[in-house]
């Protein structure tokens, strides 16, 4: 499979601050690639370097076969960008901005434009100055996905969208993928990433800390089981591969290695299972593993109490 984006050893300094510190990322052609990290970790800087808006200090980048700084204009005909905080011209209408961005990108499919306006329930006759945050976001999304491009760079595209619009967005990305296009999706919303992404990259302090498919990332991990039984569960700790057992009356919760699930279930049904919640680690948990030390112990305790 060919790479849409391959970055290796990318370095970018702002004055004395090193925003990207030997960052690596590979996006395969035709995939939806999740790009995760808290604010300030270097996500937006990476995207701006890919757009040729910032000049890299070191590192190799291959973007659709070209160099993002040198070949910016030619490459920009083949990609569309949805920025984090969408800023528009207050005196132009949403429809005008969509047409303008499409034209500047090198063309726009009118049928697709109409379909997208309808899907996102966007009124194109309103001036951008009167749009809410969510509506400005929609203008950028409609403008991007009405263009016939190979690669979409999306920086927090669903922030500000309501659940129905998030559904519309997911549908749009899924369609684009089916048509063979590549999507890089930077997002704080784990649910979106879990629903859409084939592979993910997690960035921390300008470095790649994890990359791979969600299944790969989960593979080495344990499943969390929460179970409510008719009789108190006994002897769980004697089973192999069972960890972190907490029993409160008839409620039990514990972690189990993925290859020991069957033995554990056989054990559990002896006690009359009333309800069972079993799930592989969520993306949120995978993510927090890399950022755990940023969250104080107190907060971690808090989290356990609320989940």
């Amino acid at each position: 499979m060919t790479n849409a984006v391959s970055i290796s050893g990318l370095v970018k300094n702002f004055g004395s601050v090193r925003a990207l510190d030997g960052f690596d990322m590979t996006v395969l052609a035709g995939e939806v690639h999740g790009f995760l990290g808290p604010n300030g970790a270097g996500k937006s800087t990476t995207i701006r370097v890919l757009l040729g808006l910032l000049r890299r200090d070191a590192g190799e980048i291959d973007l659709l076969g070209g160099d993002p700084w040198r070949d910016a204009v030619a490459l920009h005909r083949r990609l569309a960008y949805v920025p984090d905080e969408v800023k528009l011209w207050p005196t132009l209408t949403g429809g005008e901005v969509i047409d303008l961005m499409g034209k500047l990108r090198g063309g726009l499919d009118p049928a697709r434009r109409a379909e997208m306006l309808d899907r996102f329930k966007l009124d194109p006759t309103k001036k951008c100055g009167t749009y809410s945050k969510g509506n400005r976001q929609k203008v950028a999304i409609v403008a991007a996905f009405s263009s016939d491009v190979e690669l979409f760079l999306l920086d927090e595209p669903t922030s500000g969208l309501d659940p129905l619009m998030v559904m519309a967005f997911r549908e749009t990305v899924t369609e684009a993928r089916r048509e063979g296009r590549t999507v890089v999706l930077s997002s704080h919303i784990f649910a979106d990433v879990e629903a859409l992404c084939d592979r993910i990259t997690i960035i921390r302090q300008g470095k790649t800390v994890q990359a791979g498919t969600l299944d790969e990332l989960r593979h080495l991990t344990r499943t969390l089981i929460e179970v409510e039984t008719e009789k108190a569960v006994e002897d769980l700790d004697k089973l192999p591969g069972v960890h972190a057992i907490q029993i409160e009356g008839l409620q039990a919760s514990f972690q189990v290695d993925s290859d020991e699930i069957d033995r554990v279930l056989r054990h559990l049904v002896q006690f009359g299972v009333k309800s069972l919640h079993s799930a592989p680690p969520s993306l949120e948990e995978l993510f927090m593993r890399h950022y755990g030390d940023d969250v104080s112990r107190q907060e971690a305790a808090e989290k356990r109490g609320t989940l």
Partner: protein
Amino acid sequence: MSQAFTGTLALTWVAISRDRIQLPVWILAVAAFMVAVVSIWNGDLSQEELVSVAQFYGVQPAVRMFGLASGATLGAYIMSRGFVVFAVLVAVMSILFVVRHTRQDEDTGRAELIGSASVGRHANLASAFIVVVGANVLLAVLIGLILTFKGLPVASSFAAGAAFAGIGIFFAGLAGLAAQLAGTSRGATGLALAGLGLAFVVAGIGNILGRVDEAGVRVVSAWPAWLSPVGWGQQMRAFEEDHWSLLGLFAFSFLVLAAGAVFLETRRDTGKGLLPERRGPSAASPGLLSPVGLVWRLQRGVFLSWAVGVGLFGIVVGAVSADLEAMLDELEGFDEIFERIGGTDVIVDAAFVTFMGILALVITIYAVQGLLRMRAEESDGPAESVMATAVSRRQWVTSYILNIALGTAALFLIVGLTVGVTAGIVMGDVAAWAADLVVAGLVHIPAAWVVAGAVVLAFGLFPRRTALLAWMVFVIAAVTGPFIGAMLDLPEWIQNISPFIHVPAVPGESVTAAPIVGLLGMAVLLTGAGLLAFRRRDIDVTSV
């Protein structure tokens, strides 16, 4: 109801601390302008000369549009000549600040945040009124002191200040009302400014339709003047009759407007206006769909208002040219100044050179402002999205440079044409005057472009300091230039810094190619260097 104003005091402090820079700058700028104007017009005018300037405003109906003749005294002369300009400045200040603290807060959602705190419904509006009325009172006192200090009668000086403050306060009330009616802050500002325009025209019509006394130095205005707050201010006739009682009319009308605004504020929902929202096209016209088209669309409104402004000014300058000739003949001293600045002893030519020189500086402001928009789009606007499309940086900057350069050139053409054609109509021989003055306008284009080129260079090299550097360049070019530089008698080598000094003094002198080619070369060099620097640097966004 009493609770509806809770928190007014606290919000007043917020407004003052927000405006701790802007408001004093406005007030001091208006005061400084008053000092400058009074110093220039203070020349030792003899009684005959005062009579002749009063007659200038009294006898010519068209000139009455811009001032009300009110006797042959120095104070009355300053009032008739400067009143409208200062009235407009003060009214615009009031409108901008009231809208900023009311409607703009609603547009941005800040009013909602404030409204969720323990703050009454009308507290924001009331605090805006307090701040702006206070600013006007302060300005009135300052103007009174300035005029007194210049040796004019004390009571009349303060009456003059009060007349301006009255107008400012009236338009504060009107802006408060407009903020309730319009759906956006732009709409509210537009509505209130339209009211100001109407007030200006109505007062002018009242004066034009009025009668002049036998000596030709005092005009009794017709009734329309009494329909306009600008008219009321003129009818106070500071330095003649000092009708203090007219302040009651200002106070009463402000209270009515403010009460109306408060009433409408209880009737409407936060964030919504009473007038319906305007819609726009759902698809772009082909003209918009290029970087150049986009910048033109963004700049169009600004350009058109500038075109109308300088065009009107050109017509006025052209129309008074005949009288100017007659008047200047009688005024000792003025011809010397004009001669020194204009570089010619043909008085009318010298006067035109001076006017063109001043207008060139004013039009250069258009160029600087227009180019600074580029930086605003980069730091806190959609420029990033545009440059993420198939638009190169060169193309993006060039679209601005092209728009601004051509717009600036067009403004010079408009000024030349309007002055030339009207002067031609007044003095005969339209074709010759028009040709002369169009050239007189166009020769300034390269100098304005040099300043613009310096702005592009600043933008390319120091994005975060662009605005500061741009205005510094402008101020240096203006101060060392032919108008102020000559007035201040600056050494020649300092005057030579300004590009404007190298502009041929047309219509007095003939046009020579060397300075024009030199200035053009300089402009191209600066612009090119700026472009090169911009293409090599990072895009710099403020919010982090």
